[in-house]
């Protein structure tokens, strides 16, 4: 068994900040070349800056099939392989269901769930041919527990878990694993937008009594991407300080 990830190539969506950035950085520490994506050109440039010669940032709209195809083609031309796909890009558009707009439902489902379908489909041929691949979907604890004001986000994240299990069964025999990492409340821009009331309620329930750090989520992702995790598939690793034990 190969024990190193040296020379592998990873695509990490939503890598300009927060959890995605931590994942990209930790992968490069393992010798993995990383293509990190952001929705804006400035975000992509920021990724290129921090990756240095260990990879590059690219502009990608995960809701646009053409944009996905363009990035995958560029990776194929520059690197000739893709070993690891980390579906991390995600958005929230929170509201009580009674106030939730159709657009906010659609945007969250498209960006957080359908994007994963698009990207996985796009990388499948290459991974199947090489009999090797690691797909890691970043879900969320609220996909398991629910959270008021996030029917759209919770539906998308719970959907990811089902998607992950189904795809894992389809392609396990081809040496490709598909797993989820489900962060709890992590210190990122996304959780900064939580209201004080929301935060108070959350903290009361976290046995670790603190927010998690992006690096603590990234560590689980790197493990699932590593050769040692070859026999783990269809699984969700929860990284939540004990908030939910499932």
């Amino acid at each position: 068994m190969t024990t190193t990830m040296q020379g592998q190539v990873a695509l990490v969506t939503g890598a300009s900040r927060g959890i995605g950035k931590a994942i990209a950085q930790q992968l490069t520490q393992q010798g993995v070349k990383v293509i990190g994506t952001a929705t804006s050109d400035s975000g992509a440039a920021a990724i290129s800056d921090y990756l240095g010669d260990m990879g590059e940032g690219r502009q990608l709209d995960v809701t646009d099939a053409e944009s996905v195809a363009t990035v995958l083609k560029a990776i194929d031309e520059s690197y000739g392989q893709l070993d690891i796909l980390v579906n991390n890009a995600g958005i929230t558009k929170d509201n009580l269901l009674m106030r939730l707009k159709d657009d906010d439902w659609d945007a969250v489902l498209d960006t957080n769930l359908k994007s994963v379908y698009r990207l996985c489909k796009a990388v499948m041929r290459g991974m199947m041919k090489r009999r090797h691949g690691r797909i890691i979907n970043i879900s969320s604890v609220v996909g398991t527990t629910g959270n008021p004001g996030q029917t759209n986000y919770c539906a998308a994240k719970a959907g990811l878990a089902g998607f992950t299990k189904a795809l894992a069964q389809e392609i396990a025999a081809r040496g490709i694993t598909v797993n989820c990492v489900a962060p709890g409340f992590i210190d990122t821009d996304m959780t900064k937008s939580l209201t004080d009331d929301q935060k108070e309620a959350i903290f009361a329930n976290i046995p670790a009594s603190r927010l998690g750090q992006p690096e603590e989520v990234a560590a689980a992702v790197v493990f699932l991407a590593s050769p040692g995790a070859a026999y783990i598939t269809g699984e969700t690793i929860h990284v939540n300080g004990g908030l939910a034990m499932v």
Partner: protein
Amino acid sequence: MSTIEERVKKIIIEQLGVKEEEVKSEASFENDLGADSLDTVELVMALEEEFETEIPDEEAEKIRTVQAAIDYVTNHAND
């Protein structure tokens, strides 16, 4: 230069890990050659690469026997 039939059969033998004598024209990938649905998807991928063509999904689903594969490639060889 091998014929289309020979090239198609060679790919089937490689992809499905079957013996040459099993690859009869009327043989069904799933019923006779032990392929599962993912094997047939990979087989179509291999045909696409060998013959440098793109086989649309609705056509790919019809390629279930050795003969169907040979016919498809023969009919689209000059596209």
